[in-house]
Structures are given as C-alpha cells and as structure tokens.
C-alpha cells in the first residue's frame, strides 16, 4: 500500500472517526472520574482534562457500596456460569456435530429457536422455577438459567465441525473411547472457540442488571451492576457525574484490564471462530 494512496487515507480517516465515536464514552468516563466535583458546571461535559486530578470521586464511590463483596459476587457469578457452560456447550456441541441420532436436526433447531426469545419475557417463569428449586436470593439462582447456552452450543458445534475427522479416526485406531476423544483431541483443538465463547459469556454476565436484580434480595448477594445502580441512579435529581464516572470506572476496570493484557489471544480467537 502506497502512502499517498488517497483511498487508504480515506479509509484511515473513516476508521479514526469510528474509533473516536466508540471511545468517547470511555474517554469521558476516565476524564470525568478524576475531575473535581462541580455540580452541573458546563466543563463537566468536556473531554479535555483541564484540572488538577482528584481521587475524591473514587473515595466517594468506594464509600457508597461494598466493592470487595460486589467484585467477589460478580466473579463467582461469571466464573460459575462459564464453568458449567463450558461443560454443557462442549458436550452438546459435540453431540450435534458428530453423533447421529433420530431427530437431531429438529432438536438443534429447537435449540437455535431459544436465541430468538427476548430474555425479559422469561423473567417471571424463570423466577418461579428458581424459587421452586429454593434458589431465590442465591447466586446459583442468578447463574442457573444460563447453564445451557444455545449460542454456546451453536458455536461449539460449528467449531467441532471445522476439525478434520482424521484426528478422531487416528485416536479411535489408538483405542480412545468417546470421552477421551473429546477431552484429548477435540477440546485442545477447539480452544479458540471456547475462549471466544468465554469472552462473550463473561462480558454479558459481568454487565447484566435486570436478572440479578430480580433474583437477588439480600445486599450480601448483590452484584456490581446493582451496587453501582444503587448509588448512581436517581430520577428526581441532578447527578453527581464525577461519582457516577468513578463508579462505572471501578465496575468496568477489571474487564478493560483483562482485555489490555490478553488482547492478542482475544483477537486471535475471534478471528478463528468468526465471532464479531
């Protein structure tokens, strides 16, 4: 590509514009969280840091909620959900990709149909089930509806199908049974697909608000999003933007940090799996 190529310059300009649009909320959050409190001052909206940075907003945010506990609960929910999901989606994905059984297509499409449902309509039926299982106000109750993921099964099925059958046939010749086949041959080869699914799963459960709000009642079981909302949302007053930005920063920081550290793996696995 020549440097003077006008179409390349145009592409660069277009990409920069997209980057700017996408990163503005994050930039604003970072700037505003260090900005001294000035209620409703117009410079609150400014992206440019033109002030002495202060940690007062963070102090107030940390004081407004029990962050260590909120982090712990959120990590438990994300890790617990993902742990069970990885087992269920790999096994189901394997079944749909390799096994032959009557009604396979029908069952698979029934699975995919689940992707079309809008989650809020399931709130009441799910809550009834959770409560009958004795999981109301319990972190396992927050995780339970996600243990079987239609998206994950679909993704793993597609991933397994890209792996040549030759590997499996070689393993069978060596005397492997079905679970050795899955554990030693398919899973190592399907790792990028699993990482891609893991990212999607963790990000969505980290940020989820409505379902945990429905299941959780005691403050000890609250997740980050609920804790954040409890001190940043208010219908009838102006907001303390600095504290909101600082709180949001605290909630988003672990994911941002994880992305910065593992960026290469993330991008690779998405390229591999074709997830966008």
């Amino acid at each position, binding site marked *: 590509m020549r440097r003077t190529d006008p179409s390349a310059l145009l592409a660069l300009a277009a990409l920069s514009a997209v980057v700017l649009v996408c990163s503005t909320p994050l930039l604003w959050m970072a700037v505003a969280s260090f900005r001294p409190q000035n*209620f*409703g*001052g*117009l410079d*609150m909206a400014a992206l440019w840091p033109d002030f002495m940075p202060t940690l007062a907003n963070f102090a107030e945010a940390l004081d*407004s909620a029990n962050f260590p506990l909120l982090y*712990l*609960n959120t*990590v*438990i929910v994300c*890790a*617990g959900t993902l*742990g*069970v999901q990885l087992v269920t989606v790999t096994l189901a994905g394997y079944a749909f990709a390799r096994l032959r059984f009557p009604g396979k297509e029908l069952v698979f499409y029934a699975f995919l149909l689940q992707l079309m449902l809008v989650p809020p309509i399931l*709130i*009441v039926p799910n*809550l*009834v089930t*959770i*409560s009958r299982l004795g999981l*109301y*106000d*319990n*972190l*396992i109750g927050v*995780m339970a509806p996600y243990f079987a993921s239609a998206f994950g099964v679909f993704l793993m099925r597609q991933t397994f199908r890209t792996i040549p059958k030759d590997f499996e046939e070689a393993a069978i010749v060596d005397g492997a049974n079905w679970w050795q086949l899955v554990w030693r041959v398919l899973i190592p080869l399907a790792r990028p697909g699993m990482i891609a699914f893991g990212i999607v799963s963790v990000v969505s459960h980290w940020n989820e608000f*409505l379902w945990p*709000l*429905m299941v959780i*009642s*005691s*403050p*000890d*079981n*609250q997740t980050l999003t*609920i804790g954040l*909302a*409890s*001190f*940043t*949302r*208010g*219908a*009838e*007053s*102006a*907001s*303390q933007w600095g*504290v909101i930005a600082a709180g949001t920063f605290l909630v988003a920081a672990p994911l941002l940090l994880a992305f910065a550290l593992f960026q290469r793996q993330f991008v690779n696995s998405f390229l591999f799996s074709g997830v966008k």
Partner: protein
Amino acid sequence: MSRLASAALAAALTFSLGSGAALAATEIEMFFPVPVEGKLAKEMKNLVDRFNAEHPDIKATAVYTGSYDETNIKTRAAIKAGRPPAAVIMSANFVLEYQINDEIQPLDPLVEADGQTPDAYMSQFWPALHGNARFAEKIWAVPFHNSTPLLYYNADHFREVGLDPANPPATWAEWVDAAKKLTVRDGDSIKRYGLMIPGNYDYLGWIMTALTMSNGGLYYNPAFGGEVYYDTPSMLGALTLVDDLVRKHKVMPSGVTDGKAVSTGFFAGQASMVLLSTGSLSFIRENMKSDYGVAFVPRNLRNAVAIGGASLIMPKGLSPERQKASWTLIKWLTAPGVSGEWSRFTGYFAPNKGAYDLPEMKTFIAKNPDAKVAIDQLQYAQSWFATYNTVAVRKALEDEVQAVLSGKKLPAEALKAAQTKADEVMRPYVEQTALRLPQ
C-alpha cells in the same frame, strides 16, 4: 475445574450464611427504589438498622430494587414466584393496579387491631395523599414520602432583568412574560433559556398533569381506573402552552430535555426557571451556587398540582407473624419522627402532619423557608393519576407530548392520538367493568 468448584463452594457458603441467621426473629424484606440521589440507599439501610435495633424480635432487610419501574417489575415477579416481600415502597400511582389485580391486602384489619378506626388512622396524613392510599372503601397503602412539582427560579437572573424575586410569577401570563424577559439571545441562537421542563418518561406525564390541573383539568377519573381526559380543552390549553413556549415565544429548548439535564442547566445558569420535584429540594439547596427561590406551579384557572412520591404496600400471602412484623415496620417508618428525618434528608415532604409539630422540624423550616413552599402548595394538591396499566396509559400521552416538543406534531392532533392510544390500552379493563352490563 478447580475454579468452578471454588465458585460453587463460595456460592454454597453465601447461601448457608444467608439462611442461617434467622432463629428467633421474624425475618422480613422490604423492597425500596432510589428515586432521588444515591446516598439515599445508604440512609435507608441506616434507618432499617435502627429499626432492627429497636425491635429485637424482627429482622428487617432493606432490598434495593432499582428505579420505581424496576421495583414494580421485581415486586410483581416476586409475587408471581410465590416470594412476596413483606413490604414495598411503591410509586404511589401503581398501588391501584395491585388492588385491581388483587395482589395486596387491605390494611384496615391491622389498623382496627390496633384499636383505631380507619378514619382516625388516615387523618394523620395530609388530605391530598388520601386518594392514592385509600380507595374502593379500604386503605391499601401508607404514604411514605411525597412530592409535588415546584417552580424553581434563579433569583440573580430575576434581579438582572428587573423582575422581583420576592414576587415570582403566579399566573401563566406572568410566567410567559418572565420567561421572555429572562431568555438571553445572541442573534438567532439562545444563550440562556427562560424556562426548562423535564421531558423524560414518568417526569413528563407528571408535569403535564400539573399543567392541565392548573388549567382546570383532572387528567384522569379518580373514581374509575378506565378513563383519562387527554383530548379535552384543559389538556389542549396546557399542551398548547408548552408548544408556544418552544416555538412561538422561543424561551424553552426544543426536543426532549431529561430531568437531570434540567437540574444541571439550572445549576449552570443556562435555565432561569425550571419545573422540578420537591424531591430535588435538598439536592438543589446543597449544590446551587447562586441565589434561588421556589414558588407554586403558576396557574391559569386554578392552583392545582398532583402529588408524587411513594407509599408502603403489603402484598398478599404473608404469614400472620410476617404481617405483624411488616405492619410494625410500616408504622415505624411513617411515624412523625422518622418521617420528618427522612423529609429533611431528602427534600420530600413528610406525609405525616405530626412531623411538622416536632421542634426539630420547626427549626428546620425556619431556617429553610423554601421547604415551607412545598407544604403550602399541598392544600392545592390532588391525587396522582392511577389507572389500569398506568405506565402504558401515561406513555400514550408522553410519546405524543414529546412529538410536540420536537416539533413533529401540533397539540390538537397529538392529543387525539394520545386519547385513542390510551383508550385502546384500557379497553380490556373497561370491558370488564363499565361496559359489562346485565344481559
């Protein structure tokens, strides 16, 4: 896998800890939304801790449940799942729906068990609050914190343009005149708006209620939850006023301004007058740098506004012990002392009249005369609209008013569309009630 195992273990631990605490005390849960600034969630926890310390036989937990609307969703879902909370602080105009759905219990038996008549019990609350709490011949809710819309104005701006801050506009004519004087223009662009009103959902419906009531209207039928009065002269006058302020007089921003943007604009001196809730009073008092004043919502035909705020309700299906514990909590939270404290902390007025007879409240009012304006306006206050499917009926109007604010529709056609939409939403209920005739 070890991660999963430890996660499961930790989850099991939190569960056993959560359920192991109750032995002797009656455990109850109260759902509460945070309608104003965030610190309230903390203050609510302090309050409930104090209650538990004073009542060793009860262990109440305050459960934060999001906004008013989310609290409504969570309460309904919890009731359907067979896990009703013992008490909920519910937006006062959602109570009717719970009564229609037969999901809450009348409080009269509990009042009578205390040796009081329902009339005597209700008389401790301001009369304007009765309509949303006591209807269909029973007490369904106990007012917890309430508000009315107020006109906040920047006194410095008033002086600057020769208006008297001691005599804020009282009629629509004076209001429009003041807004015109206060607006600062630079050619075609406006540097300072004379007036701003919140245009976001929930807030907008409440502000429109205040304007139409000030214009002699009712907004809804207080005796029957299947009727609203959108396509009426009083509402047309109110909406035309809004439209004129934006397009004819050009003293108000076009489009939808969020409630937060309105208060931010007021703090920043971008808006000289704003209509906001009394619930914002403490927040504005603490953060407004310039001199400000508060006044009644200006009138065209009469002084009238609707109340806002929230009440405590008790879902059906509680055991007698939990009912009793919940009733103890409800009474404690709405007694003069706590009611007054919460009012001073938030800016909401205290529903219990007795709160204003206490010495600490008298000192507070003497020091903050703006809090008195909210109380004075109460004598003109009326019930808040409450219908079958309140939120959808309210939104039918709000969508159309937003279209007018954005210049996409004229007031008359907007109100016709709003009325049609609202009637459609309420039809199932109307067919079951007013249109169900003897065969």
